[in-house]
Every structure is written in C-alpha cells, then in structure tokens.
C-alpha cells in the first residue's frame, strides 16, 4: 500500500496552499504565512472565534469546524467566519421573568423558525439548535439552557438561518434566566461566604501570612481537601 502523500493541498479563500499533512486549519494557515489577528482566540476549542466553513472537492455538502480543532484535508476549500452581525438585546436579567414571553419580546424572530434544521447541521458542537429554539418558543427555559450548554457562540447557526434568528443570543439569555431564577441556589456557597464575612477564616490566613516558605509548603501538603466531603463522609 502506497504511503499517503506527505503534503495536502487546500484553498484559503480561493488561494492554493500546500502544507504538511496533519496540521490543524489554524496551523496550516500559519504555515502558509498568515498571521492570525482575528478569527483566532483560545486555540483550544473553547472560545468559538475560529468558526470555519469548507467544502471538500466537488462534494456539495457544506462542512464546518473550528479552525483550531479541525485537521486540514486535501482539496479543502475554506473560509473563516470570525464574526457574524447579530442583534443582541440588552436587559437586566434580574428583572426578567423566566417565561416564553420574555424570550419572544426580546427576540420575536424566534417565532419565524420554519423547522429546516440547518442550524443543527451547521453547528460545529453538534448542538440541537432547532430543538432548543422550539423549546424557547414553548418557554421551556431549563431545556434551552440544557440543550445549548456546549455553545461556543461561534455564530455559524445565525449565518445560515433563513428566519434570521440569532440562536446563540437566545440561548445565553435562557441560560442566564435559568441560573438566576430556576436553578437551585448553591447553599454551600452562601454558607461559606457568610463564614468568611464573619471572619472565621481570618486566623488561618494570618498564620499563612506569617509563615516562611518551608512552613507554607508543609501546610499545603497537609491541607484538608474538600472539607465538606470529609464532614459528610464522617456523618455517614
């Protein structure tokens, strides 16, 4: 069996480049001499700045990926979509009830969804975008928050939506409403903040401020890990 050629040929906005096989799109662009100022952020697949659309050869299917995560392929024709114009409502989440009416009044275009599912097909995170828009129409805020949790806000869904919906802004509003009004408050956090406010940690802190390096290392190595877990284990 013949070994695969060491180089692949890809096309960046129509311009041909030959690069070593196995590079990510982002590294292939840099190998080809580009310096990335926009459309490049965390380089770790989390920030969503490097949304990229591409086709392979003559296959009609439009493909997508994050440039920092997707390996460049032979006959890949690509362009980056580092930014997509998107309306964004301004609001104070404290003042908004977590209802369908809130979502619809701030983003009335969600009712224009025709159910084509193009958003789902274009999502590099494989999020069920159309499903969460359906949940948004019904006012199921918890479901929108849950389904959209892995969204990086790369904007590719909005770029393809025939109803001109900006799905990821609807989703982040739903996640804010969820955490503000629906999710159970973190009682352990409230208790800990109150304890700090009462000064219960002050003495321990003063010990550390006064300690030298060797003493600090010893304290660190002997530290209590997840004290509440230990407490809970002790009670059982």
């Amino acid at each position, binding site marked *: 069996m013949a070994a695969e050629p060491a180089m692949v040929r890809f096309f960046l906005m129509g311009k041909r480049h030959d690069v070593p096989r196995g590079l990510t799109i982002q590294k292939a662009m840099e190998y080809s001499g580009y310096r990335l100022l926009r459309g490049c952020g965390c380089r770790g697949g989390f920030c969503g700045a490097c949304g990229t659309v591409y086709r392979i050869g003559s296959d009609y299917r439009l493909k997508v990926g994050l440039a920092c995560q997707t390996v460049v392929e032979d006959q890949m024709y690509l362009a980056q979509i580092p930014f997509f114009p998107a309306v964004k409502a301004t609001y104070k989440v404290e003042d908004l009830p977590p209802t369908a009416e809130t979502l619809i009044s701030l983003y009335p275009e969600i009712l224009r969804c025709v159910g084509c599912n193009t958003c789902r097909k274009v999502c590099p995170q494989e999020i069920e975008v159309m*499903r969460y828009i*359906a949940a948004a129409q019904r006012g199921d805020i918890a479901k929108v928050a849950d389904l959209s949790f892995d969204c990086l806000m790369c904007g590719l869904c909005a770029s393809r939506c025939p109803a001109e919906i900006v799905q990821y802004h609807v989703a982040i509003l739903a996640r804010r409403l969820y955490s503000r009004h629906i999710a159970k408050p973190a009682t352990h956090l409230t208790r800990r903040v109150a304890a700090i406010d009462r000064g219960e940690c002050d003495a321990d802190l003063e010990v550390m401020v006064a300690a030298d390096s060797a003493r600090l290392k010893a304290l660190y190595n002997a530290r209590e890990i997840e004290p509440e877990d230990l407490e809970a284990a002790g009670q059982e």
Partner: protein
Amino acid sequence: MEELPEWTCCGATFSMSADSAMGLVAPTRILASAKEAGKLLTLCSFCYNTLKRTNRVIATDAEQRRKVTTFIEEDYQGNVQTVHLLEVLRDEIGFEALAARVSKRLDGLKVAPYYGCLLLRPAEELGFDDPERPTILENFLKSLGCGVVDFPHKTECCGSFVAVSSPEVAQACSARILDAAVKQGAEMLVVSCPLCQYNLDRVQRQVQAGRGRATGVPVLYFSQLLAIALGCEEGCLHLGEHVVDPRPRLSKWLGQTSQATALV
C-alpha cells in the same frame, strides 16, 4: 401512548402554494419521527390538518417526497397515520366505553359543539367526519352526559388568522357563532382548535354587553370537559386562564368526589 421525545411547531398552516416545499419540511420531520409507531396522535385541529395533509403530499407526490426527504435527510415514505384524540375516542375506545368510565356525568350542562374549519375540511383529504353534518363532537358530549345544543353555525369559520390583520372582521365572525349558539340555549361551547378558542373567548371581551351580543359564554377545549368528567384534578385544567371563567357554571363538578355522582 408515548410522547415524542422531541418535537417542533408543525407550522400551523398547510401551505396554500402547491410548489412550495418549505412548509412541508417541519411537518414531514415530525411525521418521520413517528414512523416506528406508525400512528401520530394530536389534540389540535391545526396540527391535525397540517400533518395529515402534508403526509398525503409525501405519500402521493414522488417529486415533493424526494425534495423534502433529501433535505431533511430522512427516509420517509408517508406511512404515518395522523389521528385526532376525538377519533381515538370514537374508533378505538368507543363512546359507549367512554361513557362507562365517566365518574362525574355532566348532566344538565348544555353544550354547543363547535367544529370550525380545520377538523373537517378539505373533507376528501381529512376524512374526519361529514363536513356538513358532523356528529363526532355531539356523540362525545353525550357520552360525558352533557345536553347537546345543535346550532347552524357549528362549521362556520371563527375568523382564524384574520384576527391579526383585520380584527373587526374576525370579531364579527366569532360573535355571530356565539350568538347563534346562545340563541339555541347553549351555556358553553367546546372546541378542538386553539385559534377558535382564542377568537371565540376573546371576542367576548371586545363586544359590548347589552347590545344584542352574547357575552359570558365559556369556550372550553373538549379535552377540558373530558378531564372533568373523568375526575381529573382541576389544577391541570387552567380554567382560570380563560377570558370567560367557566368555573362558576362548572362548580357542581369541580373539587367534588366522584362518589357523589355515582348514583346518577
């Protein structure tokens, strides 16, 4: 009976344009998601009309089927039968069997059945009931113990979407239906369609009482009366969200144990 794990709006309107495929996309995906079951149940007249007519296109028009199913990337041949809850009650459970299960007979309640358009027409596509002289709601109401009020406007249009563009036209349609029903002695109307419910209920806030127009006539979903007659908890019925509160007229059957009516 199993709820679909995921669903979207069906589009709520069957496209009037024969060569438009976009309106078929969402209902076809919903139908395809039920293809294992082979039968899809709905409560809503809009869903019933849209899903059933879409399925007919997919089953009979090879060109549209190819276009829509390749777009949604589903192999779907149009094998799902869309059924309305009233049809299930009539054909699978049977109104006699339903009557036997009623724990609170709604005796003495005079109800006008209102069909509107979407359950019945186009009759050759839907095959739901006789489009001019339907009887399914009448028989349903009788099985709950209600007195059925016949009236000539039960298959007239309530004004439907015209309520958005020309509200006064829709109001006139709805008011005429209510007046006709009340003239025949109806205390309330039952419907299956959310837009009929909206138009008929809301118009009573807009027309002026005492000017020859019927007001204070509750408009309920058939499923709400069904739930009351079967002894369901009132809390799940949202009766307080109607414009015309039906609870005063229904107080005899609400929050009462089913044993009290077992003697009837």
